[in-house]
């Protein structure tokens, strides 16, 4: 909910950027701005390079870069400035580009901005069980490891790792005002 105040912020900053933020293991939030100049230049360039004069669409292109770069999909983003993007697999690393997709004799994509790289949380207990057990001192003086490093204890049973359910959240002081 927005309220109009004397402190209205700019609708656009006149710059070009694309930012990804992780919301949860299966969702990231992308937001961007493409300046009019950058968009026009990209469209002109695309038409020259792609030998066509078809429609140029603004497109968000997603990549999974967990192990090398893998193209995932394109999202048409005509008038929007942000989008939630959902994934099946947690624990992956993503990046995105925003650019102009031109349809002509050769379909081609002209990049306008690249995003930051983000990693989604694993969302589950790790299958990796190897354990390093160190004191603070040993952590920064690896030469002392093996000379008195503690034995590694056995793990708690698996059910201890699966019962997380977040219904124990603080109600928050600031939301308490007001009558029910």
């Amino acid at each position, binding site marked *: 909910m927005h309220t109009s*105040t004397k402190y209205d912020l700019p609708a656009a900053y006149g710059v070009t950027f694309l930012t990804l*933020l*992780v919301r949860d293991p299966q969702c990231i939030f992308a937001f961007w701005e493409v300046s009019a100049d950058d968009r026009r230049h990209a469209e002109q360039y695309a038409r020259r390079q792609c030998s066509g004069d078809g429609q140029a669409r603004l497109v968000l292109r997603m990549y999974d870069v967990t192990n090398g770069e893998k193209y995932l999909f394109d999202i048409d983003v005509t008038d929007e*400035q942000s989008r939630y993007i959902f994934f099946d697999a947690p624990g992956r690393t993503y990046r995105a580009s925003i650019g102009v997709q031109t349809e002509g004799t050769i379909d081609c994509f002209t990049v306008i901005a690249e995003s930051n790289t983000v990693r989604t*949380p694993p969302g589950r207990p*790790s299958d990796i069980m190897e354990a390093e057990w160190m004191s603070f001192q040993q952590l920064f003086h690896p030469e002392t490891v093996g000379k008195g490093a503690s034995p590694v204890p056995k793990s708690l049973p698996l059910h201890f790792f699966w019962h997380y359910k977040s219904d124990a959240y*603080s109600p928050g002081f600031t939301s308490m005002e007001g009558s029910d």
Partner: protein
Amino acid sequence: MTEPAGYVSIVLHAHLPFIRHPEHPTFLEENWLFEAITDCYIPLLTVFRGLARDRVPWRLTMSITPPLAAMLSDSLLQDRYVRHIEGLIDLARREVDRTKDDPAFNRLAHMYVERFTHAHRMFNDEYGRDLLSAFALWQQKGHLEIIASAATHGYLPLLDPNFDWVKAQIDIGVEAYRRAFGRRPKGFWLPECGYAPPMDEMLAANDVRYFLTESHGLLHAVPRPRHGVYGPIYCPSSGVAAFARDIESSKQVWSATEGYPGDFDYREFYRDIGYDLDYEYVRPWLKADVRSNIGIKYYRITGPDGHGHKKPYDPDRAREKAALHAGNFMFNRELQVKHLRSLMDRPSLIVAPYDAELFGHWWFEGPQWLDFLLRKIAYDQSTFRLATPSDYLEMFPSNQVARPSPSSWGYNGYSEVWLGGSNDWIYRHLHMTGQLLLDLVRQIDWPAPVVRRALNQALRELLLAQSSDWAFIMSTDTHVPYAVKRTKEHLSNCQELCRQIAEGHVDEHRLRQLESRHNIFPWLDYTVLRQQKGAGHHPAPGA
């Protein structure tokens, strides 16, 4: 003394957003601080005094965030609190008169006179209006471990993809702690327990030894921690220890369905005379003539129906229940600790963090419960002992090395409370304004005094815009316009100052006005931003 089977860390997180409006004679949202002083901070300090008087051993961890510390030290807010509590004493006395023919209510009216008079005396006379020093004293006496938090309680995972502003929030938070408490913090409360790498490295750079995460920060760590949430892990490159919230002990207090605070004998938060009594009668005690909570509440929860007929509050019955619940909490920890002792090679640590403001405000009997609990732990059992996270690290310095999972203690465990349809629009402006200020800092080498002041104020404004509280409030359904206004106001102030600095015309009158209104961190020095990688390297003078 024999080694106990385990340890318990009770952590109270005390935080309120920076709300101070000298431009208005009274302001509704300033009441949050005043209510917390009367309901939470003074009752907690009173519990601590009682324990010391009776020579009960106790040990707690507490975070007091920089905005709260700044407000507790602010003379304008201190003066206003005294006026506020004097007003309440006056109202409670009128209530004694109004209820003289109804013994059940009259007794409660007397309770409020006594309660408010006590708060006034403690605040004004006993502590000389300085509650921050009152808490610091318990740290000096070795009972309390006060930990630091981010400068304005920014929700760090979303603050800045380059982490420049995460680093600024952490560095300035640690500096605020050092100035408030005269020492360096051992631990750090990540606002909303929001963790993502490489925050631990920024904590390490400030010599912070540990932080707290939500349960799955450790349950989903890589590799899988052998002790689950019942012992810390060391983050791989920084060596900072991460401790995680225990689910069982959290649920007993937090859970809306199973938690103690919902007991039918406890005081009902939502029946306040600010709403219940004749408007003209209560109007002098309302801010801006709007009905709101005043702090005099006469009913107990009574039953499951929020709107049903409520019975008068019975303090004796509630006190009995608080004692019972303290016993139940202790008993459950004993069972838990004994069970874990059979599964672990060493005593476990149960970490139980709560919002400090829950105690006494939303859960009226919370401080009483804590008082009973600390006494029972000291005298009625020997299975576990209280310890702070740093006590535990001293006793058990050898721990597993693992990478915590990004997490928060918000709904569903990640960032959706602060990143959703109601509040996602803020990040574009926070990030752009942050970059604007960093770019400016990079360009300016030897600013004139007024430019230096303008840069410091621009930084103050941006930090205030970064408070997680605004995004949180936008996700709820009360006070939303205020949170939107605060976000836009601070961002627009920062942008305006940056523009003036860039154009070489700082409006000094306006600057003075902002400095006096938004006066958090008077010692703030913008050059802290020069250490951020986004601000680039500064050449030596003349280079």
